[in-house]
């Protein structure tokens, strides 16, 4: 399908912020709150992306992903763990027999400043080690220079590779760097038309990570593509979402923008490390009526 990305729909920032404010006035209580907290937990890509990551750290996190909180045995697992390519094998082994997927960042994460050849090798290494999902980054420099075809081709090339392995591709824009909502919309269109299975806000490596306005713009792009083609694309806000309240606001936005089909970890993920424990804290509160000390909740 021919599509000129310079003609992506324009975004009115004030309108976006007002819409977000409306989502945030929704009051989610009682049964609907418990249901949403569990859903949010089930949508987490539990993440560790640090220079100091070790096999030990990854194994511990994988156990947490499978057993979020032993005191509440009927909790779901997280959706996935998200690690560097070198940790994929460790995670894969640690998660054997569970539903939890392994996502690997790639393409010279987080900057994306490398050659295509290296990006492909980076991705292939993760896939060969068993990654179920690839979280690639776009070349923000090329994007800001207006080389949209370059960005498109890069995504399409990685998509070819992930497709061969039957892995799903998430495309990270680093929205804090591309800055405007118009750019976010354009990047969304490029990634979606190039074959992204998921579009994702941020690496979590710079100051400004996922925000609700940015996520709403991306969800609108997903919605518009669905209207045109009937094809669903997933959404992953990442970084900066650490509270249960915030997560529920995202779910309200998701529900009221693209609808109930997306209320599933096949189509929506939270990229987060500390969110899980706040969700657990709130679930404990709903179950027992009082807040627990955080010392009762494990920190892997």
């Amino acid at each position, binding site marked *: 399908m021919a599509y000129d990305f310079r003609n992506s729909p*324009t975004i009115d920032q004030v309108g976006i912020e*007002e819409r977000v404010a409306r989502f945030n*006035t929704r*009051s989610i209580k009682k049964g609907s709150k418990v249901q949403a907290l569990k859903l949010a937990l089930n949508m987490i890509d539990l993440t560790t992306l640090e220079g100091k990551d070790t096999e030990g750290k990854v194994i511990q996190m994988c156990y947490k992903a499978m057993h979020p909180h032993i005191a509440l045995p009927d909790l779901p697992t997280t959706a996935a763990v998200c690690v560097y390519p070198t940790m994929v094998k460790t995670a894969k082994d640690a998660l054997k027999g569970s539903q939890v997927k392994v996502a690997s960042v790639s393409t010279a994460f987080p900057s994306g400043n490398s050659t295509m050849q290296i990006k492909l090798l980076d991705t292939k290494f993760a896939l060969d080690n068993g990654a179920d999902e690839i979280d690639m980054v776009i070349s923000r420099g090329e994007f800001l220079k207006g080389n949209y075809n370059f960005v498109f081709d890069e995504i399409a090339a990685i998509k070819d590779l992930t497709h061969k392995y039957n892995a799903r591709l998430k495309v990270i824009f680093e929205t804090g760097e591309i800055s405007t909502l118009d750019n976010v919309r354009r990047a969304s269109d490029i990634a979606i038309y190039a074959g992204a299975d998921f579009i994702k806000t941020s690496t979590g490596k710079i100051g400004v990570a996922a925000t609700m306005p940015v996520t709403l713009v991306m969800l609108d792009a997903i919605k518009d593509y669905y209207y045109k083609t009937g094809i669903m694309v997933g959404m992953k806000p990442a970084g900066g979402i650490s509270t249960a309240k915030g997560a529920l606001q995202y779910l309200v936005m998701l529900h009221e923008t693209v609808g109930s*089909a997306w209320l599933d970890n096949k189509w929506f993920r939270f990229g987060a490390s500390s969110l899980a424990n706040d969700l657990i804290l709130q679930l404990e509160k709903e179950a027992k009526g009082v807040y627990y000390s955080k010392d009762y909740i494990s920190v892997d």
Partner: protein
Amino acid sequence: MRSKTKQKMAKKEAKKLEYFTDWKYAPSPEATDHIRLQKQYELFINGKFVKPNSGKYFDTINPATEEKISSIAEANDKDVDTAVKAARGAYDKTWSKMPAKERAKYIYRIARLIQERARELSVIETMDGGKSIRESRDIDVPLAANHFFYYAGWADKLEYAFPNRHPKSLGVAGQVIPWNFPLLMAAWKIAPALATGNTVVLKPAETTSLTALKLAEIIQESGLPDGVVNIITGHGPVGASMVNHKDINKIAFTGSTNVGKWIQKAIAGTDKKLTLELGGKAANIIFEDAPINQAVEGIVNGIFFNQGHVCCAGSRLFVQESVADEVIRKLKDRLETLIVGDPLDKNTDIGAINSKMQLNKINEYLKIGVNDGAEMYQSSCSIPKKGFFVRPTLFLNTSQSHRISQEEIFGPVLAVQTFRTIEEVIEKANNIPYGLSAGVWTDKGSRIFNMTSKLRAGVVWANTYNKFDPTSPFGGYKESGFGREGGLHGLMPYLKF
């Protein structure tokens, strides 16, 4: 059952979004146990609550439950006369002589008291009028307080507002307000009148007297000198009696165009000053380069805000044909996510229609629209069995010649037309006796300025809709009235130079 039919529909039209889910927002009603309402409310005249001369009372009901809330005094000519005399006395003896900066202090105090009692006021506004608690809490009550704050600031600066024109107060202002924004309209009327040194006799609409009477309590508490503000309740004849009263210097009316015309005739030949803020049938215009997803929100906010009981509601939608299919499809989907029901529930988007009478009128227009051949589309939401409710409604394929495109419905009903060129849409937007407001949605700044200069409307919103601020003047052209409320302009109708 419902989900099955929906699934069938989804198969037929594969790209339709689906909002049905077992994840429902649990009811989240605002508490009402802190609300203290009397069984019976009297007239507020000369700083005291007094029984009406007629001895008659009428019921005020909650339009969402049809249950009686309280009894309200019905004033008659004698009560009007007493109230006007009280206002005149207060004007002559205290208010016109008081230094302006002292006047300002009282107005500030009223503003602060409204803020202190914001929760109570918003709950009562919702119970008595049917609007959603989200709107009365986030819009009506804060804006009402802001109007008092804003005009308090002007009280001692009138000489600077109108340099070398020596502004003087008029005397007694008779103010008649509608039921769609009861407390907010009272604030719009009272605040500038007090700031300019006038005294007031105000009549709220008969279906929504409660927050005005609560405001009377606040005014008592503020220590405002007796008689400066008098609030009398009752039906149409009370307003008529005020209009005809010989000792009123100024009439300010917000309401229907028919009544406005009658008032203008009634005061012809007198030296009463007049401001009228009347009906509207605003064009909300979507150009092809508009931010479409935000425009859809603007359309929803334009027509469904306050159940469409808004004189400046964007009730005529004009969509450029190149994007019409997209906009209408998105609008239909958006309708599915609007929550209609208990106005006290914090998640409710669209509350109850204000009265049985208004409900009948809206339903009558729905029939007219269908009979005239327009295509009606309604949200599939369920509405409560009891109470006055209407599903959010679109009429597609309408033309300028349809009655539903010409007459003010004052309900959640949107008439949708398409257009091709800018000249065509300007001509059609202006082709109406009203001229209160309009909306323009485009990414192009130059087009916005072009449109604002050509649209015959008092307020033109660009890439937004239904935004109000005390600092911004509001008012109409043509049969939508004259005179401005809000901003520096809002001082003028209460001054002579």
